[in-house]
């Protein structure tokens, strides 16, 4: 027992108190037991214990003794006499030793690696979000178009490498100071303040993982969304967000993000397909993209985001549209929609919109019961009206101005209408709604400006009004749905007002420059704007007079357009004039729409705008020319 005890204690010492070695595999231990003359015990490697070998070198000193091996139940007793020792120089114990399993471990805890970043170097610049020039038309310093210049092409690549971001930059929003209980921290917001209803809107968004903010146009939906994004970043709820919006407001979003959430790294996904392919994988907090680009990048785009924001969410009202399909491929843990007019025409549109925002909430079978739809979407829908929350916002006056066509205009109009109807009748059963729409467009364009005589009662009226307006130092916007057949034709006659023209043919950079010029340059008194290109999201509060030279089918489009002026920031009363001509197709359309407006208002007043109306059915379109839709 004594030997075993000594053996194990020495073994333990060797194992535990070895100075520096961290690995304690032993294959030999020397033990000196003087009284028995044992000078060496050889122990096989610990990993494979086989037995113990004892060598005797001082025969004379050996006496009989017992060796008890291990406490595992195996006991070997060896009687050793002096006579045996004469014959046995080396004595081997063949019984297996039961070693304890020895695990290697380090007592020392090593110093950890550190990682981090100094944010002093990280300052956001206005152009940081764009990896590549937006327009390829810009000439480079070598006098070539940038996309054709091999030198600039190389520098674009190196720019990309430099822009590679550190993950610690992405957690910067979390490390920022809190926004304040009422989003009023002077450090976080500097001189910017939210209105009380906007604070409610932010709280509504933050508290809802699926929501539509349906505030009336001009109440700052995008700002509320940005502050809500900022808050979610700060509480660590999200680390990335994608904002999908119409092209006309892409730059506006970028600017607002820069103003209201400067710590967020924003990437605008634009440029050539090759450039976008890279930008999609660029690390950022906010990815900004238009609906059309998203559709084009279906295969390249990232699919998972913490938050998806759909600005003007009515863009996905049609479930079979390519845009809707592209949006539905984007996964978002949190999904918000923004729109002043989430419902443009039919309740089915809401079903399509909510199929993305909160799948399963609405079904197409529900559209018969508008009350049920109202109740179902109520928890996820917040809408406020200017008249309720912005009592201090200047008033807006709408007037319909009915004008007589000039004689020359009337002549051209009557001729075109007569020929058009004859043509429709001649087509008989093959006539389609497209044929009718084409005739309507042609007639509306004559109502705007007669192509041969170049006469226009609307233009005469407009010039008269603009002279008064500009004398007062005020500015005006003229909207039309026909940029080429109307706006471009009006431009020469309005030269004295230094008109700016804003339509869909302009590049993004040109659009931004025009808006800036109109807002800041006093020389440009009016802006001629395509209602489709400029109707959404822009802020044109420098103007307080709006002229609808013609109206789109859907009055909500006109409303969107005129609210570019009637929004936060407007200090003057806004005057909106819609120009119509009597005894023309315009009058007939207006009569039909007016009949419907009241009915629609009664059904969905709470959900959408009071002036929202259904567009005309095919039957109604045919009836404008006393035609009946053929039954095929």
């Amino acid at each position, binding site marked *: 027992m004594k030997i075993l005890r000594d053996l194990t204690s020495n073994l333990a010492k060797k194992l535990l108190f070895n100075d520096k070695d961290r690995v304690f595999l032993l294959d030999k231990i020397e033990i000196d037991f003087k009284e028995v003359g044992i000078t060496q015990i050889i122990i096989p490697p610990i990993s494979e214990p086989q037995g113990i070998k004892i060598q005797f070198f001082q025969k004379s000193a050996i006496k009989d003794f017992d060796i008890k091996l291990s406490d595992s139940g195996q006991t070997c007793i060896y009687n050793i006499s002096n006579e045996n020792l004469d014959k046995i120089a080396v004595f081997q114990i063949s019984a297996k030793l039961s070693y304890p399993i020895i695990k290697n*471990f*380090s*007592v020392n*805890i*090593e*110093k*950890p*690696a*550190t*990682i*981090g*970043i*100094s*944010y*002093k170097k990280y300052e956001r610049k206005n152009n940081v979000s764009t990896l590549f020039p937006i327009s390829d038309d810009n000439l480079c310093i070598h006098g070539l178009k940038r996309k054709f210049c091999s030198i600039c092409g190389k520098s674009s690549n190196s720019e990309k490498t430099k822009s590679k971001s550190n*993950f*610690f930059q992405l*957690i*910067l929003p*979390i*490390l*920022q*100071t*809190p926004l304040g*209980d009422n989003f009023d921290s002077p*450090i976080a917001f500097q001189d910017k303040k939210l209105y009380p209803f906007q604070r409610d809107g932010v709280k509504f968004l933050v508290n809802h993982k699926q929501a539509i903010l349906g505030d009336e146009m001009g109440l700052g939906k995008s700002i509320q969304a940005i502050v809500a994004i900022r808050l979610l970043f*700060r*509480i*660590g709820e999200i*680390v990335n967000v994608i904002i999908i919006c119409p092209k006309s407001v892409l730059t506006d979003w970028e600017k607002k993000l820069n103003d209201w959430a400067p710590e967020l790294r924003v990437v605008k996904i634009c440029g050539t397909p090759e450039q976008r392919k890279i930008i999609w994988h660029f690390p950022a907090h906010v990815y900004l993209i238009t609906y059309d680009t998203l559709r084009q990048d279906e295969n390249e785009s990232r699919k998972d985001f913490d938050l998806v924001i759909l600005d003007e969410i009515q863009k996905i009202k049609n479930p079979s549209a390519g845009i809707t399909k592209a949006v539905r491929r984007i996964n978002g843990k949190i999904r918000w929609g923004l729109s002043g007019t989430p419902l443009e025409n039919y309740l089915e549109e809401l079903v399509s919109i909510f199929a993305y925002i909160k799948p399963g909430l609405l079904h197409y079978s529900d559209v018969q019961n508008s009350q049920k739809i109202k109740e179902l979407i109520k928890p996820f829908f917040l809408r406020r009206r200017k008249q309720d929350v912005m009592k201090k916002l200047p008033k807006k006056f709408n007037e319909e101005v009915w004008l007589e066509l000039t004689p020359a205009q009337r002549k051209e109009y009557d001729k075109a209408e007569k020929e058009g109807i004859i043509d429709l009748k001649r087509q008989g059963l093959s006539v389609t709604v497209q044929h009718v729409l084409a005739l309507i467009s042609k007639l509306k364009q004559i109502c705007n400006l007669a192509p041969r005589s170049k006469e226009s009662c609307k233009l005469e009226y407009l010039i008269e009004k603009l002279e008064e307006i500009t004398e007062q130092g005020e500015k005006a916007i003229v909207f039309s749905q026909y940029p080429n057949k109307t706006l471009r034709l009006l431009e020469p006659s309005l030269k004295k007002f230094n008109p700016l023209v804003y339509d869909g043919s302009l590049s993004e950079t040109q659009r931004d420059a025009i808006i800036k010029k109109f807002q800041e340059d006093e020389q440009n008194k009016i802006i001629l704007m395509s209602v489709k290109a400029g109707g959404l999201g822009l802020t044109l509060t420098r103007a307080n007079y709006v002229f609808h030279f013609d109206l789109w089918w859907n009055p909500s489009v006109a409303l969107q357009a005129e609210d570019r002026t009637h929004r936060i920031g407007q200090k003057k009363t806004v005057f909106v004039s819609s120009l119509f001509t009597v005894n023309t197709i315009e009058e007939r359309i207006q009569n039909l729409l007016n009949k419907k407006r009241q009915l629609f208002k009664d059904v969905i007043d709470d959900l959408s705008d009071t002036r929202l109306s259904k567009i005309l059915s095919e039957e109604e379109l045919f009836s404008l020319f006393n035609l009946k839709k053929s039954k095929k």
Partner: protein
Amino acid sequence: MNIKGSYEEHLLGFLSIYETNSNDGYIGSLLITDFQGIPQEFRCTHPIKPTAVQKVLYGDSLEPFIGVNLCGSSLLKSTQTVPSILIVDKNYLIDIRKITTFPVIYVRKAGETIDLSLSEGNKIGKRDRIDPPNSKSHPLIIISHPDFSDDLSVAKKILEKIFIILDPLEPFHRMLKAIEVLGKQDKIFK
């Protein structure tokens, strides 16, 4: 110790250690902000995951050892910015003062109970109280290292001034969130 310059020039350091999301390790974290709390630098360590044996062998000294000797010293060595004062939210971290040239102060809400056994040698530093500028914040107790009593008055001067803008305990919440997000985003920090 005297600190020169107006309080607007002061940089504040916040040092803490946090448990990893999986609760099996510790991550040291250091945030340096300006006097308004705007981040200037942020550093953290890779997680330290002591083994069960190490936990037993180190006993109560495990967290102080990791917090001061391993994380704290490494983090302070790695910073590009030197803070005017270092604020810690755990009493044992005050021992980092032995290797710093600037004051270190332990800050806690008044009325909170603490385990004094975790401070080295059970020595207790000098303490003082700072009352909040408004009813939204709690009064604070500040405690200096027992061997650096002068730190207390320096710290009080600075903290009283910045308390109007910044609750000295608030940045620790930000760091915790940042560590949580790092853990979600990168498996190294889990």
